[in-house]
């Protein structure tokens, strides 16, 4: 068994097509490691009593990829045993119940991959230049993550 042939990799994708949990899980699975942890962010159909028709995502793509690569580097520093990391984020229209983001991490045992996935989504929400527009029946709203340090949440 040549474990060194399975080098740790980061799989980052920003795309407008529907995301696939199967695809993301399969790319991080390694025959040498026993744990894969996953986070899926999906579109809700309501916000503060208003019906959400769908979400629309937009990104500063080149910088978003750079920031996600940095998140992967940070993960590997904090959890050196982590094997593969996959971050797939959908852009454009995302219908209700479909996934807007899927993050998967593989590691020898579950603690590292669970913690790494949590770190990835939390840091993504705080630092990656992607924007979400919630479309309601009569209006829309550009959302702001509470993790974003320059959002003025007390207006």
């Amino acid at each position, binding site marked *: 068994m040549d474990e060194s042939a399975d080098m740790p990799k980061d799989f980052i994708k920003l795309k407008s097509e529907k995301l696939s949990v199967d695809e993301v899980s399969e790319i991080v699975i390694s025959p040498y490691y026993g744990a894969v942890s996953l986070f899926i962010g999906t579109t809700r159909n309501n916000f503060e009593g208003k019906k959400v028709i769908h979400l629309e995502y937009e990104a500063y793509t080149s910088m978003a990829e750079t920031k996600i690569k940095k998140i992967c580097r940070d993960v590997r520093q904090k959890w050196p045993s982590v094997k593969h990391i996959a971050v797939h984020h959908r852009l454009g229209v995302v219908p209700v119940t479909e996934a807007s983001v899927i993050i998967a991490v593989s590691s020898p045992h579950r603690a590292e991959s669970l913690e790494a996935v949590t770190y990835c989504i939390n840091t993504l929400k705080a630092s990656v230049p*992607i924007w979400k527009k919630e479309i309601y029946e009569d209006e829309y709203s550009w959302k702001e993550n509470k993790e974003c340090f*320059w959002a003025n949440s007390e207006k």
Partner: protein
Amino acid sequence: VAVQYFARTRELVGLCSETSVPQQITSLQLWEEITKIHPRLVVIWDQVVFAVQQEYVLLGDQLLILQPRDKVAIIPPISGG
């Protein structure tokens, strides 16, 4: 230097990018130059940061030395994930 606009700022300005700013300037002065051209952006002055060469820069005294091919973007509050 090209300035790119995203999300809500793109809607306020009505376009995605343009070229128009001086090369040596503080980030606050840069904001003031941009709002002279696009006054509708003034309403969100306290909710944006810049991205200069893909690093976030707050509006303030930080001196920016911009090369002609540098990328500057106005970044409203993010909401990925």
